């Protein structure tokens, strides 16, 4: 998992002319965006596609052709229509489960990280216990004991079993933010706990939260597919996993009905690959250290930063203040690195040294 590093403070310290340019979207970002948009459009297209997913248009495993671009499944339904409905279901489950998991994870993580002490030990103790239990086992047990499984209950179940890693990572970030000066300022000015958490802590780890959410969405889509493939999916709704379940049950592989199992497999691959790539490229956007691009751009950026640094130095003799702030930031980066098992120099240090070189 990668980390955030921050630095809203830095961004303001080195203002740039063009804000859009400062996002520095890479090619990866655009590729992932295309994939994700494609899947979303596929899901929405089901709303206007003339054939319903429950309409019997043919027989058992009719081959593609004759107005059915992907043939029929074991119920005689149009595979393309089912695929569209299934993609929609999977996306809904992914989004809902992602929201649930991220909300729980961020809440627990923020509280634990900010409040600290025995409260932190308690929350993290619980989190670690939940983290140690394989989520898929819990998922299967809960799904089996549910009297009736709908897409909403399934999304909820997936959400409440997948939050622990978000909580741990957010705690690490929050505990670092908690030591910053602006928190003291907020506290002195009389802000209460929820206000501080929402207005003074959360914004600093928002970029990380967004990326965690994207990962949760793709994880939830895969979890739904795994459950549905085992036959524990939502009843009365088509999903990518239940398509695979039925094609397994009716031995589509053995009877050569590739159109029954390949399309959902491909969409699942695209959706999880797209989301992972999106997460990775967002990481680049938020984390300057990870930015990649053409060498020329890198050089330009380095030169620009050097120039900016020089200007700053010239204009401002009170460099010692700056250093103090930067040290603060490096603390936080250290905490984040610890949470993400990521080693390496803290980005602001490298930024600074890079900026210093030319001078």
């Amino acid at each position, binding site marked *: 998992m990668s980390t955030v590093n921050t630095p809203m403070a830095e961004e303001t310290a080195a203002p740039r002319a063009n804000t859009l340019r400062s996002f520095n979207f890479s090619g990866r970002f655009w590729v992932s965006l295309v994939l994700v948009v494609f899947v979303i459009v596929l899901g929405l297209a089901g709303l206007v596609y003339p054939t319903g997913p429950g309409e*019997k248009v043919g027989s058992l495993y009719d081959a593609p052709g004759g107005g059915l671009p992907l043939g029929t499944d074991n119920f005689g339904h149009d595979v393309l229509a089912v695929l569209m409905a299934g993609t929609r279901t999977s996306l809904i489950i992914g989004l809902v489960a992602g929201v649930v998991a991220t909300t729980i994870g961020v809440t627990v993580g923020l509280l634990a990280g900010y409040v600290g002490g025995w409260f932190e030990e308690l929350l993290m103790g619980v989190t670690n216990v939940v983290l140690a239990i394989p989520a898929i086992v819990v998922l299967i047990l809960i799904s089996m004991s549910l009297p009736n499984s709908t897409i909403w209950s399934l999304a909820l179940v997936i959400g409440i079993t997948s939050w622990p890693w978000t909580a741990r990572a957010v705690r690490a970030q929050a505990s670092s933010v908690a030591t910053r000066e602006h928190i003291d300022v907020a506290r002195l000015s009389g802000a209460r706990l929820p206000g501080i958490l929402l207005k003074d802590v959360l914004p600093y780890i928002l970029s990380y939260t967004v990326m965690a959410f994207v990962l949760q969405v793709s994880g939830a889509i895969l979890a739904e597919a795994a459950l549905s493939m085992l036959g524990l999916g939502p009843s009365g709704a088509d999903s990518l996993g239940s398509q695979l379940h039925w094609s397994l*049950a*009716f*031995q589509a592989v053995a009877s050569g009905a590739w159109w029954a199992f390949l399309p959902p497999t491909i969409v699942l691959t695209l959706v999880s690959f797209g989301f992972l790539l999106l997460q990775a490229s967002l990481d680049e956007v938020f984390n300057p250290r990870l930015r990649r691009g053409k060498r020329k751009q890198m050089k330009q950026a380095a030169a620009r930063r050097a120039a900016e640094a020089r200007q700053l130095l010239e204009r401002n003799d009170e460099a010692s203040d700056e250093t103090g702030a930067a040290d603060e930031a490096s603390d936080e980066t250290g905490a984040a690195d610890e949470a993400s098992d990521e080693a390496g120099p803290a980005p602001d240090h490298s930024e600074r040294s890079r900026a210093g070189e030319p001078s």
Partner: protein
Amino acid sequence: MTAQDSPRHLGGTSRRRFLATTGALGSVAALAACGGATGGGSGGGGEELVGVGNNGKAGSGRSGDGADQLFIAGFQWSPPTNFNTFAGSPAWPASGNVAQYIYETLLRFHIVSGELLPGLAASHEVNGNESISLTLQDGITWHDGSELTVDDVLYTFELGKIDPGLGIASFWTEVDEMTAEGNTLNVAINAERKNVGAVLATLAQQYIVPKAVFEKAAEETGNKVASWETDEAMGTGPFTLELADQTQIILARHDDYWGKDFYGGLPAMSKIIHPIFKSNEDGNIKFQNGELDVMQQFVPQISKMWEAGKPVGTYLREEPYFVPSSMPMFLMNTTKPGLDDPAVRKALAYAVDYASIAETAMSGYSSQVLASLVIPDGAEDQWLDRDKAEADGWAFDAVKAAELLEEAGYEKGSDGFYAKDGEKLGPWKLITPQGWTDWNAALEIVAKNFQDIGVDATTNFPQEAQTTSAIQNGDFDMACWYVAGTNPAAPWQRFSDVMSNVDMAPLGETAYRNFSRWENGEINDLLETAAAAPDDESKKEAIAALDDLYRSEVPAFPLMYRPDEFFEFNASNWSNWPTEDNDYAPPMFRGAGNEWIFQLKKIGD
């Protein structure tokens, strides 16, 4: 494992109908019409083979060790642990009522003609509904060479008294006494119940075991015969148990088989090998490649195999390919509000798209479902009043279903579901065990059909054990479940399974029949009359009366018909399989299916 190895049975379609629906397979039918094939191998060079693949093709025979062996599958899914035929789940072929390769029964039921053919008993005679007498064959010997006597037969049934926990114990509720005189056995039927069919069914299903062996077993286990474990099986059949391990069960031909003369020779194969597969797919692929000769595994779209040129065949050349002989029932818990109304139950019966179920969930292996508890084909056809079933029965008609609900006073609410006096139709859960794929798919279709007419229903597939106890205890809304298949006691047994009010268990307690918990004042008398009917004429009348009551009350309705056993063969190495055109034996492994094992011919010889 999947549904096919569970004790389900099913029932059928008329042959007229499949002949009428052959369009799609016309070309195949044309090929097949010649009825024979030329052996691909050397042998007689152009000699006509019968009983080959549905496309008229046959293989050229295996070479090497496999050439004289028969490979069979679909009966054993886990490593064999116990060959005690009375145990909870004995290994094949000691498990009850399967192929009679080691153990044999007194009589053998023919699923197509409904006849009871001789087994260990050379003949049997039914005296009204009072007694049955059986005469044993001459010179029957056990595998160790000792002679089978009437004592062995008597002891086998006595075991039901020695250990009342055994299945055979139920024999004694229908039978008062069993005596022997010389080589003849006399079974006195319970004078109150007079249920000849049930007694004949047991006589045709119970393996006869050696008294010497099981007397010792009873002694060792303190009369808990079911708990006895053994890796040996000594019977009277044409094969002996040679080897059983994690991967296979091997039977070897018993050259001193007593029935050499009775069957006109010994089986041609020296060994029968049952490989143990983990899943259907493994077996199906081996079957398609000719590495298995015959099996009873569920194969979706088996027609694709012979369309692809494989010498694969089934008893019937056209859909439904298998002889229907069991009837998965859609049960409705009549203790639930809404479902206690016969008008609602009938409307639901109209709402189901049976053709879709047959075509997709059943891969076309089911014929058109008739509104009757009698299977309209094979052995049971003689008891069916088809005109009545068609006139008073139901068929898929969603409009009519909605009309019936409205006539009964139900109105569609704002949520799109019918309700009466604030009592909504649903939400109901449709259950059947997870992994019984054809039933799972059938219920998906039913749930959708119900939703379409305005009845709230969703599917739910728990594990098999959970489903069984939910159904037995009445803790369900609706379910797909099995009832008696075609056997000597059918269709009476099926009426009893679905409707009997005898020993009704209260909700929460285990019921063994009438899982819908449907209550009616007349049914027990009607069932008694039918069971005790002294001749065919009055039996048919009594069955018709039962069927009338069934159609007016609809405590349950059939979703499809299934074969008793899937009988699929691959004529790569053996020919002369039983088919519709070569019908010397029925398409079954158990009972009268024993015949074909003696008649298979090695291709290339």
